[in-house]
């Protein structure tokens, strides 16, 4: 594995900043330092991509399963009763 430049941020530190980075919660100087680290560190780029891919995968778990008809009927009855209909 060849590494051309010594990076100024440790990967140990960088992986703990990934969420703050994605949340836009890093102060400007820290954000710049983090991005500079990514330029020199393929490992942390892969790590960041893994997290992004995972977030996308998690979103696909929400694939909608509509509420069962029986539940909808019950809730509708509840709604009518609450509105005095």
């Amino acid at each position, binding site marked *: 594995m060849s*590494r051309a430049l010594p990076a100024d941020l440790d990967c140990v530190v960088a*992986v703990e900043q990934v969420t703050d980075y994605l949340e836009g919660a890093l102060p400007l100087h820290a954000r710049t330092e983090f991005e500079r680290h990514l330029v020199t560190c393929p490992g942390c780029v892969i790590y960041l*991509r893994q997290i992004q891919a995972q977030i996308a995968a*998690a979103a696909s778990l929400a694939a909608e399963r509509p509420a069962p008809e029986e539940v909808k009927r*019950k809730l509708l009855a509840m*709604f*009518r009763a609450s509105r005095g209909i």
Partner: protein
Amino acid sequence: MPAAAPDVQALLQDLPLVEALRAGDERAFLGLVGRLHAGMVRFARGFVNTDAAAEDVVQDTWAAMLEGIDGFEGRSALRSWIFGILANLARTRATRDQRAVPLSALEHDDGEPAVDASEFLPPSHPRWGGHWAKYPEAWPEQQLLSQETLAHVRAAIDRLPQGQRAVIRLRDVEGWSSEEVREALSVSEVNQRVLLHRARSRVRREIAHHVERRSKP
């Protein structure tokens, strides 16, 4: 990702719906049920032991929502308000079912590192201490979205501590903004982020184990 909830625009968007519900508009109510019910059941399941208990809690939440809608002041988005009720009822039910997790646990940070220390070179390394010993493996997208891997993602989320689980479900599964999650779960901005970070890190570790196991001959 949805826009931040507490902004004025989002609150104004809810107004016609709230008025329709108050006026007894059944289509408006069924539309809301269609949008929220499944996500509410998934969310409740993070607190209680069985699917049936989760359905119960969600129905109680709808009942409480209908009872409270006339007094709803629109200080939060309708969805955050409903999930806030749900979070409280689900916690109460979990306590009753001996699956008690105090609210303070939502604030707890277990302090474990995002990545196991063994993945990095030791600090004593002459040049690369604290850097990857071996780069992580890129995940093939197709494999990540396979039913098998997704089942692992779901299971990994289910195994998280309650606070982490609640936050990652709302943020990454349901796609909520951090503001909405903070409102619904009554956690601070920083704690929301810490819980999300721990949750994502843990789930990533589990996916990595799974993917690496699969890619070995």
